[in-house]
């Protein structure tokens, strides 16, 4: 019985995707934050140099003879030199009028205000950073306001930023990779607990309904708890139906046995043919019904156990010796000899109950059809392939029926006069199939029937 359960998503996938998705978002966030911070720091660096440059130019401005004289040192601009050969622009205004430099470098500054300002703007096909500062010179007639503006392209800055971005990206990727590995590890340890429980459930035999006692993580306790409750209920109801079957069998078979015993005792005493015929029919009907019931139960049991095959090591020759010994009294009753022919220990991994049932049915069949004073041979061959033959010295299978005899409820045409349900060969065949084996029907050279189970 394999229960098909519809699957909806996967806990493992869900857990893994949440963890991996989260770490991806974190990695991207980290990248932008670090890069933004780095850009800010780099900008502040450029701004302070620009500011120093502007200051040094402003410091050089003097008022001489009512005119502004500004002879700024070379260092004022050279301090701005970078590895990327960034271009530097400057402009000097007196009271809003351009004295020297690039007049188109931004708006004309306002006269008033003393604040030092920084701005980024596009100039000459590049982005430049502009620092502006003013200083008021007190002259004899009136104060003069000198404004100095220095600008620099941002190639070096961009270069530095790129480098930082690359490093941060590498770091982010590394973080992401590590987080992914951790996510997988965390997922498998969590799911592993579930898998272990699943394994211990599936590894159980069909008869094992004992509760799970191994400690499980706290979150799984309710699940295992309800599983155990289910087991208890299942065991209880199985036990109940088993008891019911036993009780029912007892209640039905005991009166049948009474009837049969009386019929047999009476049969020995009465002489009139019609009475004898009636009693014979009675005994036959009882035997028929009890045998049919037995075989139907056997067949149901075989079907059930074959689907949940429990394999253990079985010494086939010992099992068959036991079986032959048990069936010998019945064989003797009919003056039939039951022989076991074994070429050594034959070991098979399988279900003892099933195998015993199959062989009992085969020997039973052979006993039914074997003529008086003949022998039935149970032959076990361990090599080259493990096989068991049950051979009688009767009339054999009729060739046109040999293919259909193993079908459920089919009986041979010479079955008349023999009690049976037609399930014996079916049971044997089902058992062989459950053990990955085959059943072959054939006739011996002397004409007897031979049933071979190969494993």
């Amino acid at each position, binding site marked *: 019985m394999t229960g098909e359960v519809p699957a909806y998503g996967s806990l493992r996938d869900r857990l893994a995707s949440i963890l991996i998705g989260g770490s991806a978002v974190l990695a991207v966030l980290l990248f932008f934050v670090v890069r933004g911070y780095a850009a800010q720091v780099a900008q502040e660096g450029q701004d302070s140099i620009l500011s120093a440059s502007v200051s040094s130019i402003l410091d050089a401005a003097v008022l001489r003879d009512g005119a502004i004289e500004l002879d700024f040192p070379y260092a004022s601009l050279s301090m701005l030199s970078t590895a990327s050969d960034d271009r530097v622009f400057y402009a000097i205004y007196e009271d809003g009028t351009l004295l020297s430099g690039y007049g188109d470098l931004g708006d004309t500054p306002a006269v008033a205000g003393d604040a030092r300002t920084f701005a980024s703007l596009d100039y000459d096909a590049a982005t430049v950073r502009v620092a502006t500062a003013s200083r008021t010179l007190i002259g004899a007639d009136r104060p003069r306001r000198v404004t100095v503006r220095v600008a620099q392209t941002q190639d070096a800055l961009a270069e530095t930023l790129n480098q930082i971005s690359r490093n941060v990206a590498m770091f982010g990727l590394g973080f992401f990779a590590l987080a992914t590995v951790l996510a997988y590890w965390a997922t498998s340890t969590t799911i592993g607990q579930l898998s272990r429980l699943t394994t211990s459930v599936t590894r159980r035999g069909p008869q094992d309904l004992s509760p799970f006692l191994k400690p499980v993580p706290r979150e799984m306790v309710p699940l295992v708890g309800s599983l155990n409750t289910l087991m208890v209920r299942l065991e209880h109801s199985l036990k109940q139906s088993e008891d019911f079957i036993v009780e029912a069998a007892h209640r039905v*078979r005991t009166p049948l046995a009474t009837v049969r015993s009386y019929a047999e005792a009476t049969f020995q005493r009465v002489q009139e043919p019609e009475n004898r015929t009636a009693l014979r029919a009675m005994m036959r009907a009882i035997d028929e019904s009890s045998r049919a019931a037995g075989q139907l139960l056997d067949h149901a049991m075989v079907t059930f156990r074959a689907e949940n095959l429990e394999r253990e090591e079985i010494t086939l020759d010992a099992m068959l010796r036991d079986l032959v010994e048990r069936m010998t009294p019945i064989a003797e009753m009919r003056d039939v000899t039951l022989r076991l022919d074994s070429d050594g220990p034959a070991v098979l991994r399988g279900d003892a109950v099933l195998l015993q049932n199959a062989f009992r049915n085969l020997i039973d069949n052979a006993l039914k059809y074997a003529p008086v004073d003949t022998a039935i041979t149970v032959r076990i061959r361990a090599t080259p392939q493990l096989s068991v033959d049950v051979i009688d010295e009767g009339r054999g299978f009729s060739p046109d029926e040999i293919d259909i005899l193993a079908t459920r409820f089919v009986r041979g045409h010479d079955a008349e006069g023999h009690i049976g349900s037609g399930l014996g060969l079916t049971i044997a065949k089902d058992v062989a199939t459950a053990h990955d084996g085959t059943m072959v029907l054939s006739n011996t050279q002397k004409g007897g029937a031979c049933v071979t189970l190969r494993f």
Partner: protein
Amino acid sequence: MKYLLVEDNLELAHAICARIGLDGHMVDHAQTIGDAVDFARIGAYDLILLDIMLPDGDGRSFLKQHRAENNDTPVIVLTARSQVSDRISMLDLGADDYVTKPFDHAELQARCRAVLRRKNGTAQPTTRIGDVEFDPVGGYLTVKGTTLNLRNRELRLLELLINARGQVFSKQSLVDRLFSYDDDVSENAIEVYIGRLRKHLEGSAVQIVTLRGLGYRLDHDG
């Protein structure tokens, strides 16, 4: 032979007793495990037939007590189930064999015989008539010092005739005893077995005589 039957169903018990009595054996009947334990302690039984479901417990508990008392009288269980697992647990507890209800008495007899043979004997000694010695359990017939192993039907036929020496058996009654009701045999089949036994007994103190129109009888000198 002496049997103890442990069976709570009175009807079935009567039927079994009647049938076993027909073969000339003695049967005591106990209805509960308690009675059965007492009976088994006192009576010297050759065999115990035990029903597995009894009013005061499981037949298995009787087996346990029985074996605990070192009583080695063979036990054949009468069960309503034929499941192998059930059988194994009963054999583990010391049952010697089992038959499934409803059972054929010929099969029960055959199983009893097999169990007794395996257990090596019975309280009943072998029958000795003149120079003929007959062991019904082992299946041996010794005639003038020569021991023969009898086939099952020969054995049962001889047992029947010897146990009721001097009594006349019709062919029909012999067929009924020797063959299953289901075996399609004519009365002539009996002649074959009588013929074989006569050959075995040739020149001994025991003869099987034919009474025309009546049947057969076992006679013996002395």
